[in-house]
């Protein structure tokens, strides 16, 4: 199936040449665990280098040391970022893919240092990629960059309004800044730059807004509102990252889950019961709940999220990555991303499994 987008860019969705040498920053994130495990299991991947502040995360300890190397670096410092491209392992050939997942999103104790880390790490990594001829740079953004309100589109596409409100939470502004650093370089002729905006990610231990909300005891929701959402899961997001790293294509993409339902519907499916609070008191009630250690969800991060629907339309990602991947299997019997294809259509996951 070729449509307007892929016919304009006929190389979209074709497998990249050679074997992958991948740098993944922010391997402490839960989605990074899923993604790195998939990469290491992929025979087309030569090796993966994980970068983090601290020691190797437990889920990655068992990986083959020949194929997965863990290193530490402070990504807010340019010299340390430069050093990443000069590892012994890279003496013959440099990375061909850099996946930037590192982000300091803790709203508590937000400071200039965090801002510098969030924005500068993206800039230094991207700059390093462009100067060293890295073939692909993937930046994982968030759906919090979208403006949400009573006049939001029913299905939010990539060209929807971004939240440029100067009063927006600093973390959201950092994300927008970092994203725009990537978008400014998207015309680069050798490096394919991909920005992924996942809808809320659900899964044990994931530090996404929706997941933190659901882990609250109890989750607080506003009276009279039940927004529509289509969250993804860390497994599905890991699979989508794998597809983006394996197939050719560049640009800005929404990445969402296959099921559209109300927020309360998702909670009911997981056996979570919520408490309703009048809308004007929601922020105050949330502060009290956080102070009491009953929740880590900060409503100020994305204020409209619990009031108004945010359904991401990820048809563009489908067309550029999921559908071409399935076509490759159908036509040539090759499997560019192994089981990544399982997630190419919207329907197969059950409602309860969607998260």
């Amino acid at each position, binding site marked *: 199936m070729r449509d307007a987008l892929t016919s304009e860019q006929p190389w979209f969705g074709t497998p990249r040449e050679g074997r992958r040498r991948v740098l993944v920053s922010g391997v402490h994130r839960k989605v990074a665990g899923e993604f790195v495990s998939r990469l290491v299991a992929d025979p087309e991947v030569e090796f993966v280098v994980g970068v983090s502040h601290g020691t190797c995360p437990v889920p990655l300890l068992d990986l083959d040391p020949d194929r997965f190397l863990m290193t530490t670096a402070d990504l807010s410092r340019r010299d340390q970022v430069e050093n990443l491209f000069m590892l012994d392992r890279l003496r013959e050939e440099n990375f061909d893919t850099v996946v930037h997942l590192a982000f300091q999103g803790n709203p508590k104790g937000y400071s200039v240092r965090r801002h510098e880390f969030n924005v500068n790490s993206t800039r230094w990594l991207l700059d390093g990629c462009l100067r060293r001829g890295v073939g692909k740079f993937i930046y994982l953004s968030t759906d919090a960059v979208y403006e949400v309100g*009573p*006049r939001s589109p*029913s299905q939010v596409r990539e060209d929807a309004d971004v939240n440029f409100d100067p009063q927006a939470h600093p973390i959201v502004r950092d994300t927008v800044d970092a994203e725009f650093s990537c978008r400014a370089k998207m015309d680069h002729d050798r490096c394919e730059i991909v920005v992924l905006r996942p809808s809320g990610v659900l899964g044990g231990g994931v530090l996404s807004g929706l997941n933190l909300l659901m882990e609250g005891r109890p989750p607080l929701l506003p009276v009279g509102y039940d927004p529509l959402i289509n969250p993804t899961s860390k497994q599905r997001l890991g699979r989508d990252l794998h597809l983006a790293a394996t197939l050719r294509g560049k640009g800005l993409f929404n990445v969402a889950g296959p099921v559209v*339902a*109300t927020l309360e519907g998702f909670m009911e499916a997981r056996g979570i019961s919520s408490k309703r609070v009048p809308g004007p008191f929601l922020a105050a009630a949330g502060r009290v709940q956080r102070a009491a250690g009953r929740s880590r969800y900060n409503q100020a991060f994305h204020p409209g999220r619990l009031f108004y629907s945010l359904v991401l339309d990820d048809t563009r990602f489908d067309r550029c990555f999921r559908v071409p991947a399935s076509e490759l299997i159908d036509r040539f019997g090759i499997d560019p991303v192994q089981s990544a294809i399982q997630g190419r259509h919207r329907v197969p996951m059950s409602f309860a499994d969607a998260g």
Partner: protein
Amino acid sequence: MPRDWIDSDTARALLTPDDRVRLERYVLHDAGAGMDMFGVSREALGRGLAAGRFVHRHVVRVRSQGHGHVPFAGGALVAMVGQRPNAAQLMSLIVDVFVGARTPRLVRTLIDERWTAAPYAGSLARELGQVPDLVSNAEALLSAGHVLGIPIHDLDEVSYDHSVAGTISSIQGSFTVASCLDWARRHELPVIPAVLSVSSELDRSDEPTSDSLRARSSALGRRALERALFGASGGKRGRRLEIVYAAPIHVSGVDDPEESEGRVQTRESLQRALQQAVAKHSTLAGCDSTTSPFQGASAPGESDVHA
């Protein structure tokens, strides 16, 4: 919670057997959790239909015909002309198409921000298929093959006659003939004129039959409701909403050089076709002359009248 404003079983019990069958026949494009991409679920439709049916039958007292012009599948634009519907009238039109068309179709509309921002009301509207007033939403609905209802506000230079609008305000955005033409052309959709008008009958039911206080207050209540729905009465009684779905107007494609086979191509020709539909159909059964801007030929008899 919005979903609990009426129990699903209670709602179904309030429906007629025919409406229950229609509800089951409605084709819902399930997005995984029993609701479509826009948040419409069969349960919510059942609840909305239970409430809307009452308004349709006993409050607005709709009489309609021409449901056969609503396509049984695929997208269409329902151009509301003759009178801009207020909230109750819009709800009645949606119910009317759902219960009257050969295949139950849900007319989606683009509603105001003040409605979508309100607690309960916003969720309720969404569950019944109504979306925020944005062009991108209209495009998404039309691309997905839904029936989109849009009031046309520039059919005539004088626009709608606001004196018959009633005190219940309209909750949806209105559009121009040009945007209607543009959408119809780009999505290759038929434009179905839905001619709305208010008729009055010599109905003395709201006259107090006795001098008792109860009878007088009941008559006053009915008059107030009628005034809210249809505006100042001008001495008329027993008013009701008449809806006629006229024959579809087909629009020439972008590449078609000129108008052919009864297709319209320009804004003027679409405007003329809509005006003719209003003139032809707004005189149905004792319609108020004040609500018929293009009063002319009498309406043809059509078989599928729903009252």
